[in-house]
């Protein structure tokens, strides 16, 4: 069956594209664009070719100029030569023409005129009478084409016939490319002095001159011109050939000279592709060697920077252990390797117990020092091939190779023992630091690194749930247990958010100055499987780690707003804790505006609590957004004020309305003078700044009295009221 037209057309286009180096799928209409794009992709041209092109252009310009100058100069020389010859011929013909004026002998005339036959450059010669009009004798070369020359005019005759000049006047007239007419008078002279008395050879004057006729000759130098043009053509061709030879040689030389530059292309390409293990040749010409040396220096610097960046990207800048991302990548590789080759390993998840207290008590620098020492401790304990990482704030992970699952408890116990022996010295205090360890065995090719990490994470929370300073090995066999407690915080927290399972607890604040507002701190709880509630200590760090804390904050605000709306009491105020992650959200003012607008409540009914630690670290960022929210009527409190590196200085510029004095200062205020003085100072400064104070952790009535005496505005604690899911709006 013959192929259809469409099939033939497709085959033709494919063939055309193949010849043009284009993809087969491009149709006829797109071929021009594709060719343009292909050439555009070709990028910059070769330097050698460009140099050669410049050389050729320059040489061609010189060539044209030389040929033009040669042609012009030669023609000028020929013309001058012809003029000189013309003068010579005028003198010669003046002498030859004597018989014409001296005798009527025809033979003599003929002899004189035919003498010119021997000279091909004379195309025509005319002897004219003294009026310049009548031709007395004429010679005309046979087969010679003579241009039309106008007869000598009266004015020219008059000019030529002048005898009051020292030399004869000659007229040159060029007609056409190769013929020149020369006209001159014929003079006779006689000595003026009769009898030549006192004649002297040296006397220049004293002669009478008379014009007796004119000579008019036409010189044809076409043969010379033709010879010249032919020779010029040969010369130009020769020069052109020499130029091409020179260009060819120059091409070779330029390529040879630029060869070291071309050799740079390969290492530079490798460098551009990300390879830094490249060395550039530094031998050869001085300039190239310098470039090579400079490139090598650059490559070394790049290599060092690349290494530093890689290290920075893959390691924690504080402990220089692997960071989470890199650890996960390496773990994924190991999991894959185990899946392919068998074997087993163990993944340890370390979570420092009460690290937050260290931070809060001794400051972040102390916390950082602790993390560094823990990292060093782990580094010293592990084998060379093991992978250890700082997984999060106070979390470390460790993957060990070729570990028998039976030996895992022993290894875990050794870590626990290691920590028992470890003492952290800070500010003169000797602190015992413990961590909980979650462990999972990596021996199943069906799981990936994330699943193993969830298992280890679940295990570490199990360990914490069983009391800190212990370890827990994730048991896949005990499915029910895993289902209940080991599904992992991530899923549980996600589920709580999706199902809006968060539970609000309310702890009242007592106004010590008879305030009309009823303030309650809203506290987040999650439901337990056994219909109990889980306190924040159990899930807060996980929620932060999984980036879910902001969503919980949003959920709390929404629910709190709903409750406030239901109260329909403008004096009811909720104090809500906000996490760092909440402030990473966009459009916070709009969100809060929408909430209060939707529930018809006042912005002042919300007090948002922020930890002092977070404020200090993000003071500039928070200043801007808190200023906006304050302007809209929302209020803010600094939580746990006085627990860390408190500074009164930033309070001057920070839009805050309450200071919640840390419970550590309040709990023993009745016995501890330092605490009392400290609280007193905080209250005085706050009063100066028109900031109200809230005392946390008030344990008894004496404390309340003292706080009132110190001028504290509100009191909060179990003595005032414990957190409860029931909201009691009656004043305390």
């Amino acid at each position, binding site marked *: 069956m013959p192929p259809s037209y469409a099939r033939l057309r497709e085959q033709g286009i494919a063939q055309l594209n193949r010849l043009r180096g284009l993809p087969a799928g491009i149709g006829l209409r797109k071929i021009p664009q594709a060719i343009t794009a292909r050439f555009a992709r070709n990028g910059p041209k070769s330097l050698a070719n460009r140099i050669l092109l410049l050389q050729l252009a320059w040489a061609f310009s010189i060539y044209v100029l030389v040929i033009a100058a040669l042609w012009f100069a030669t023609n000028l020389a020929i013309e001058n030569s012809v003029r000189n010859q013309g003068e010579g011929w005028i003198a010669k013909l003046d002498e030859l023409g004597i018989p014409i004026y001296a*005798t009527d002998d025809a033979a003599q005339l003929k002899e004189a005129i035919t003498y010119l036959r021997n000279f091909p450059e004379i195309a025509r010669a005319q002897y004219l009478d003294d009026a310049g009009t009548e031709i007395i004798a004429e010679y005309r070369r046979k087969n010679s084409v003579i241009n039309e020359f106008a007869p000598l005019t009266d004015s020219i005759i008059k000019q030529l016939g002048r005898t009051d000049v020292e030399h004869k006047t000659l007229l040159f007239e060029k007609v056409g490319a190769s013929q020149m007419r020369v006209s001159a008078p014929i003079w*006779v002279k*006689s000595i*003026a002095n*009769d*009898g*030549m*008395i*006192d*004649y002297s050879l040296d006397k220049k004057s004293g002669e009478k001159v008379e014009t007796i006729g004119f000579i008019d000759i036409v010189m044809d130098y076409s043969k010379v011109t033709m010879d010249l043009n032919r020779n010029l053509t040969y010369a130009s061709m020769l020069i052109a050939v020499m130029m091409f030879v020179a260009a060819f040689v120059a091409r070779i030389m330029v390529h040879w000279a630029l060869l070291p530059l071309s050799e740079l292309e390969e290492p530079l390409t490798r460098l551009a592709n990300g390879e830094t293990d490249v060395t550039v040749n530094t031998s050869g010409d001085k300039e190239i060697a310098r470039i090579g040396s400079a490139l090598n220096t650059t490559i070394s610097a790049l290599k060092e920077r690349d290494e530093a960046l890689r290290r920075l990207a893959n390691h924690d800048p504080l402990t220089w252990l692997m960071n989470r991302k890199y650890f996960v990548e390496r773990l994924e590789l190991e999991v894959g390797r185990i899946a392919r080759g068998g074997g087993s390993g163990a993944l340890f998840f370390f979570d420092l117990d009460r690290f937050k207290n260290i931070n809060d008590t001794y400051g972040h620098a102390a916390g950082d020092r602790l993390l560094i020492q823990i990292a060093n401790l782990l580094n010293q304990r592990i084998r060379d091939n093991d992978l250890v990482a700082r997984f999060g704030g106070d979390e470390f992970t460790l993957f060990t190779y070729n570990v028998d699952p039976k030996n895992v408890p022993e290894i875990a116990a050794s870590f626990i023992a290691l920590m028992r022996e470890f003492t952290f010295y800070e500010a003169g205090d000797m602190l015992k630091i413990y961590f909980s360890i979650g462990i999972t065995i990596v021996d199943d090719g069906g799981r990936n690194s994330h699943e193993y990490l969830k298992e280890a994470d679940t295990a570490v929370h199990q360990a914490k749930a069983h009391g800190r300073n212990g370890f827990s090995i994730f048991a896949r066999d005990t499915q029910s247990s895993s289902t209940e407690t080991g599904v992992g915080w991530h899923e549980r927290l996600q589920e709580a958010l999706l199902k809006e399972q968060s539970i609000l607890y309310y702890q009242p604040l007592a106004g010590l100055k008879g305030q009309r507002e009823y303030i309650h701190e809203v506290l987040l709880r999650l439901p337990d499987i056994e219909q109990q509630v889980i306190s924040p200590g159990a899930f807060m760090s996980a929620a932060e780690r999984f980036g879910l804390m902001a969503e919980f904050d949003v959920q709390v605000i929404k629910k709190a707003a709903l409750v406030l709306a239901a109260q329909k009491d403008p004096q009811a105020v909720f104090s809500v804790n906000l996490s760092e992650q909440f402030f990473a959200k966009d459009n916070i003012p709009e969100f809060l505006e929408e909430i209060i607008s939707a529930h018809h409540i006042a912005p002042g009914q919300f007090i948002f609590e922020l930890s002092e630690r977070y404020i200090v670290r993000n003071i500039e960022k928070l200043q801007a957004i808190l200023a906006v929210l304050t302007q809209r009527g929302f209020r803010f409190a600094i939580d746990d004020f006085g627990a860390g590196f408190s500074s009164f200085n930033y309070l001057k510029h920070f839009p805050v309305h309450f200071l919640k004095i840390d419970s550590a200062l309040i709990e023993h205020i009745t016995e501890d003078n330092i605490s009392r003085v400290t609280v007193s100072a905080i209250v005085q400064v706050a009063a100066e700044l028109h900031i109200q104070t809230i005392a946390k952790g008030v344990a008894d009535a004496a404390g309340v009295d003292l706080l009132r005496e110190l001028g504290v505005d509100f009191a909060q604690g179990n003595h005032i009221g414990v957190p409860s899911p029931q909201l009691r709006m009656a004043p305390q």
Partner: protein
Amino acid sequence: MSMRWSPMVIFVVLLLQGCAQPKQLPAAKAAPPKAAAMQVVILVSEDIPAYSEVAKALAKRLGQRGKVRYLNGGSQVENIKLLAEYKNDEHKQFVSIGLNASVAAKSLTNRQVVFCQVFNYQDYALLSARHKGVSMMPSMSGTFSAWRALAPNTTDIGVISGPGFDDVIQTARAAARSHGLTLHHEAVNSDKEYQYAYKQMSSKVQGYWLLPDNRVLSGNMLRDVMTFSVRNGKQVAVFSEELLNLGGLFSTVGDNQDIAQQVLDRLEQAQNKEAIPGPDIVHPDKLNLRINSVMAQRFNLEIPERYKKYANAP
């Protein structure tokens, strides 16, 4: 073809020419001037040696009778006006020296005028019964005599002149013949024709006698024909000692004392007569001869003993 002279030969020729000294032939003893009653006015064209020497010789001989008057280059009309006072002075004779004075003296139609030092008297029609002259040319007989003595083998001589010189040529031809020489003459109208005729004549003659005919001679042409002569081995008798430098064999120049004497003789003969007796032109008997020893040697000529004192290198 042009003759090629080496620079050394030219140098030697010029050196020898420069050393030559003009020598005067022994002049015939001058007759003492006869006492004349008439005053003689000597009109001189201009104060140049060729004129003033003749005038001085005349004045010396005439004594109180002679009065010299220089016209000094005035125009023909001015000169005629100047001479108008003499038109009716019957007691005076006139001598005009040079062409300008002679042309002006033509106006003295009724007075006796003897002109001298004029070559082209024919064109200006200076001759009449009362106006006659003394030729400025040196003795033709002496010229041809010297030539014959210098170059005995020379038989044919060419001479070229402007028109109207037939009488002079006839006289010259006779004088030449008397010394065994044949004179070939061509009359021409211009220097170009002169040049052409000179070269055309070359095959017929062994030497040229140059006449001082200013009408057909020009400086370049003179150089050309002299060069032609030297190249072609032609002996040239020239009218000026200076032309010896260009290759002339010998020069003959008129003797001013002799000319003055001839003039006085004619004036004496015309005393108390209407016309001036004798031929229109009388020729001097004497000449000043100078021989170019270099050219003589070149032509292999043996200078006779009696002429050796006139021979010298130019």
